[in-house]
């Protein structure tokens, strides 16, 4: 083990991998939110010149990955692995995108936690000496996810107040063994937890226990409190899940104050998304478009990013199954 494992679930990187570049692609709605102007590319509409929304989503991943590589002034030949995932069946968005990216692909499914999962696994590959540079990416598209998981977009249904809006966005992070940038110091991979919530329109409540579990595990493994971080940011719990997480953490003896959520940050309340954003793309674009920049600018020193994933399938939710959920955490530190 060479002492890289701490406690039950946490890995500490001996030579922390560096995020040397990042890129984001979003839809028009995401760019109208509070993070407007933070993204590298904004698509003019939901199709962006493609025939189907599925093709658009593949193109978004491709664009984000290529842009991240270009931003580091590297070429695809310099990258050892691409770690990517999305919400579609058989990871089709990532797989189809990877047709045009000559980098070995490791497809990952962590539902909306995919960005954190791919960053964690990518960092392990680098610190383990299996790769020099990897690209971690995740994407989601509002319309492909809606039609797969819920209803056709033109059906006149009412969304409950706890429902979240799938973000149209893709983000890519370029991790390298050396370089200048934000360091990934620790990663805590989470257990799958299911406390019986079965309402697919209330995923925040389904994911909150998994997030609380991973967060408690991380803090206990490292023997620190939540105040060791300037910001603890969860993936896409939304307003409801965020409130529950704070409650659970309080019950466990931790007061979360310096805490926020990508799903809450990405949309303005006036955008009528109800509980906030969700989807792989949500945390991918908020982390890569905003939080990393805040770290680089020195406005944040240490951030714990916990991606949250609701591992439901359309079949399982039709069969009335509850929603298993998972949280994966990566600790980020600004360059010194």
């Amino acid at each position, binding site marked *: 083990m060479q002492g890289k494992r701490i406690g039950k679930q946490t890995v500490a990187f001996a030579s922390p991998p560096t995020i040397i570049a990042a890129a984001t692609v979003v839809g028009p709605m995401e760019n109208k939110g509070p993070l407007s102007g933070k993204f590298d590319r904004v698509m003019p509409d939901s199709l962006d010149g493609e025939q189907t929304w599925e093709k658009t989503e593949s193109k978004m991943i491709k664009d984000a990955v290529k842009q991240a590589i270009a931003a580091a002034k590297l070429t695809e030949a310099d990258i050892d692995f691409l770690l990517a995932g999305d919400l579609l069946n058989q990871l089709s968005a990532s797989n189809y995108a990877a047709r045009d990216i000559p980098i070995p692909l490791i497809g990952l499914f962590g539902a909306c936690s995919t960005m954190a999962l791919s960053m964690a696994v990518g960092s392990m590959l680098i610190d383990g000496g299996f790769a020099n540079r990897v690209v971690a990416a995740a994407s989601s598209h509002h319309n492909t996810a809606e039609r797969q998981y819920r209803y056709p977009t*033109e059906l006149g249904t009412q969304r409950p107040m706890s429902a979240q809006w799938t973000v149209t966005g893709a983000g890519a992070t370029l991790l390298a063994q050396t370089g200048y940038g934000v360091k990934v110091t620790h990663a805590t991979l989470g257990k799958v*937890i299911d406390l019986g919530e079965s309402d697919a329109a209330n995923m925040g409540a389904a994911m909150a226990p998994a997030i609380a579990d991973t967060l408690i595990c991380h803090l206990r493994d490292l023997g620190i409190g939540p105040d060791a971080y300037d910001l603890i940011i969860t993936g896409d719990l939304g307003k409801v899940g965020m409130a529950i997480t704070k*409650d659970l953490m309080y019950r466990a003896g931790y007061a979360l*104050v310096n805490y926020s959520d990508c799903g809450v940050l990405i949309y303005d309340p006036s955008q009528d998304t*109800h509980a906030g954003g969700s989807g792989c793309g949500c945390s991918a674009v908020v982390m890569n478009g905003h939080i990393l920049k805040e770290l680089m600018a020195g406005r944040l020193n240490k951030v714990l990013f916990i991606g949250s994933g609701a591992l439901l399938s359309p079949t399982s939710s039709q069969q009335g199954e509850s929603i298993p959920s998972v949280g994966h955490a990566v600790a980020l530190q600004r360059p010194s």
Partner: protein
Amino acid sequence: MDEKRDSIESAARDAQQLSSWAEADSGVGLGQQKVMQLSLQDNQKQQQKKQAKLPEPLQSLVDLVGPDQPKGQLISPGEPKLTPQMYKQIADEYKPKPTLLKNCIWAFVVGGLICVIGQIVSNILAHYGLDGNDGASLTSVVMIFLGALLTGLGVYDEIGKRAGAGSIIPITGFANSMVAPAMEFKREGFVFGVGAKLFTIAGPVLVYGITASFIIGLIKFIVR
């Protein structure tokens, strides 16, 4: 050798990296900071509320997981200390209530108005001598046409977002439930896309409606 060259290259790249990050940082969204502040204030408020309710945080933990459990052990694998029953209570506390009154007013007004349109259509048809069964059939045909057209134009889902049942229950909503999936799955072809998806919601409606009518007919036939 290679390693050395790599490190020189990467040092050169690092220098460039500095500038590329600086470029990326040029725009700071003020709106963002406001949202962040709001959510931090929110956190503090919730904390205070909780503290008022539970004088000592650990007290509550002991209640939940038993006195033997060390601090922080809220949930452990295999055997969750936080049972689904307990969790349901916590989660329900935070579940936003549907805006029931508002939803009902919207449903009432929009549903009523759609029926008024139906009544006007039926009155006009009656004026031209089409009443009784034929009039009723033609009225449904016109309403279905309107529902399908508004769905195609992308208007019906906007109405439905507010009106809920007010636009689902009228027969225009039945048309919407056929067109919406069919249109969306057109990209999967005209047989398995349009043809099959027309009946995702309409299918069950026809199945239960026709079966019910069959049973009613059978009873009527037997007791006649």
